[in-house]
């Protein structure tokens, strides 16, 4: 035990003096996620809030051919910009960003409208651009409303009940709760948290294994009268310590970021205060030794810093896989999934975010399953360190 703590103390101190470790464990890892996330979400939210408040802007060409339609649009609050554009000019204008959505009313509109034949209009927009697609949708809805209004009038004039043309009345009911809606946005947050956990220990896991070999200090270390399991244990413990710091910083950063993200303006509330952050810390804690053991195990097989870096970057992606599956199959928290590390943490954190009750048993199963895998990996690492091939 004494040797284990000696190794732990030395690895902790040495890496505290290493800029690379500090930047990745205490700066890049924990802060990258929350900052990127905060920026993304607040931009997304700002956009959608602003859009519904803002009047729709429409460039209209040939408005004089349909004075009735133009009046209707203006009455609906659409800001019309009159222009004279051919179809090709309109395409170019939309593509070049000169106009977002262009409505072209050809000359034949008038005669056909009067003859009660379908009167053509041209709506030019770029559906690849999410911004203008939304505006085009709004324009389409308004045009549709105008058309059905005219249709009903025509039926009425001919003595037909206009309701005959409305066989189904669709009323939508959205049951999403404010927190539930936010989860769609916040779903990715759990990955950033697990990413921060791994980043915290990444360089220490490399430095204490492949680094030790590359530096040439490994053989001297292995010739000491210390059990290999103590060496491995101390190294993994030091890696865990940095991962915990990184996890703590990451959660703190998330709590801070969400103070400034205007989720309430969308009628959402992020269930992420200091209390939730503490629960998250508890949920993620078993994942720490698993990540540390996994990275140390993989790095123990590599010969150099560079090689270890290559392999461990792949390891950083491992926790994404279950989370990706979870979103593809929209998995919900259930006991059978608590056996899968990283997925169980993701589901539990999502449940907490949604303000759903979580079963104590699920938390225990998640922790026990994750820790068991961690233990297996630690034993495998220690066994590998006992082999002669460790010398390289």
């Amino acid at each position, binding site marked *: 035990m*004494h040797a284990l703590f*000696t190794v732990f103390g030395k690895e902790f101190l040495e890496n505290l*003096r290493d800029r690379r470790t500090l930047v990745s464990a205490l700066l890049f890892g924990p802060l990258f996620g929350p900052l990127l996330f905060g920026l993304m979400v607040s931009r997304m939210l700002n956009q959608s809030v602003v859009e519904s408040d803002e009047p729709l802007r429409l460039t209209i060409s040939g408005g004089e051919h349909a004075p009735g339609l133009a009046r209707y649009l203006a009455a609906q609050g659409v800001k019309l910009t009159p222009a004279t554009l051919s179809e090709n000019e309109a395409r170019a204008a939309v593509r070049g960003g000169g106009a977002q959505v262009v409505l072209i009313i050809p000359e034949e509109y008038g005669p056909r409208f009067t003859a009660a034949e379908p009167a053509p209009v041209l709506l030019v927009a770029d559906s690849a651009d999410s911004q203008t697609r939304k505006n085009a949708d709004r324009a389409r809805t308004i045009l549709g409303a105008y058309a059905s209004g005219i249709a009903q009038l025509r039926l009425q004039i001919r003595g037909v009940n206009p309701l005959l043309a409305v066989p189904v009345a669709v009323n939508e009911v959205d049951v999403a709760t404010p927190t539930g809606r936010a989860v769609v946005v916040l779903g990715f947050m759990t990955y950033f948290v697990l990413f921060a956990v791994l980043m915290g220990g990444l360089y220490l896991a490399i430095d204490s294994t492949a680094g030790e070999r590359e530096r040439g*200090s490994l053989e*001297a270390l*292995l010739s*000491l*009268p210390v059990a290999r399991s103590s060496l491995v244990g101390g190294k993994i413990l030091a890696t865990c310590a940095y991962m915990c710091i990184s996890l703590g910083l990451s959660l703190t950063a998330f709590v801070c970021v969400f103070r400034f993200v205007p989720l309430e303006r969308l009628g959402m509330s992020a269930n992420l205060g200091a209390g939730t952050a503490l629960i998250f810390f508890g949920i993620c804690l078993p994942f720490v030794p698993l990540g540390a053991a996994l990275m140390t195990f993989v790095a123990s097989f590599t010969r150099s810093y560079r090689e270890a870096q290559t392999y461990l970057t792949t390891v950083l992606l491992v926790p994404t896989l279950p989370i990706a599956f979870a979103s593809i199959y929209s998995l919900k928290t259930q006991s059978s999934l608590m056996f899968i590390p990283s997925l169980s943490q993701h589901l539990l954190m999502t449940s907490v975010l949604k303000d759903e009750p979580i079963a104590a048993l699920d938390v225990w199963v998640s922790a026990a399953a994750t820790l068991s895998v961690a233990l297996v990996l630690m034993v495998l690492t220690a066994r590998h360190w006992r082999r002669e091939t460790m*010398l390289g």
Partner: protein
Amino acid sequence: MIEAKNLCKRFGVIEAVRDISFVARDGEITGILGANGAGKSTCLRMLYGVLTPDGGQGCIDGIDIRGETSKARAHLGVLPHATGLYGNLTARENIHYFGSLQGVDAGRLKARSGELARALGMESFMERRAKGLSQGQRIKTALARALIHDPGNIVLDEPTNGLDVMAIRNLREMLLALKAQGRCVLFSSHVMQEVAALCDRVVIIGHGRVLADATVQSIRDRSGAASLEEAFLQVLGDTAGVS
């Protein structure tokens, strides 16, 4: 005292060490001389217990290195071929880390590292980070690290590699001092002059076997050659590669 008894080791099809036996006595410097690839490092690695012999036994002060590894290692200081230090730790922290892992308590560590710093002339750089040290300073630190637990036996694997003339000279004096303290010093080299200048006994290894095991003087007498160099060449026979 370090004993090698019929050590054998093979890596796949390569027989690195076929049958090596010798004794390195206390108060003597024993040199293992051999060409690159002759099996010197493999032999030493078995003696300090990081490789398991396929046959035979290595003993430190009569303790079997495989049977009671920790106990045997407590009697042994090792300076492996690669003498890497932890760059972000000071020379003193490097030495204390190994001392602490050897089970030396804090009070004793301080006294002992002070002693070693004086003996090896390290006082000026004990508090400096290892990454800024010169090659000579690094080897002193590595040697102090190997001696921190005051072992009776010291094994050094090609310690002079990469050192300049001054540093080699320093190292030579350090080894002679260790011998004068009655310790058993065992080191390997492929440089004949180095072995001749320093050793009481020479074990010449070629193709994984002991070709000669004798005092420097007796090798010279036995071969009847005028110079030491010729005496060595006669013993080595076709074992080329010793410089």
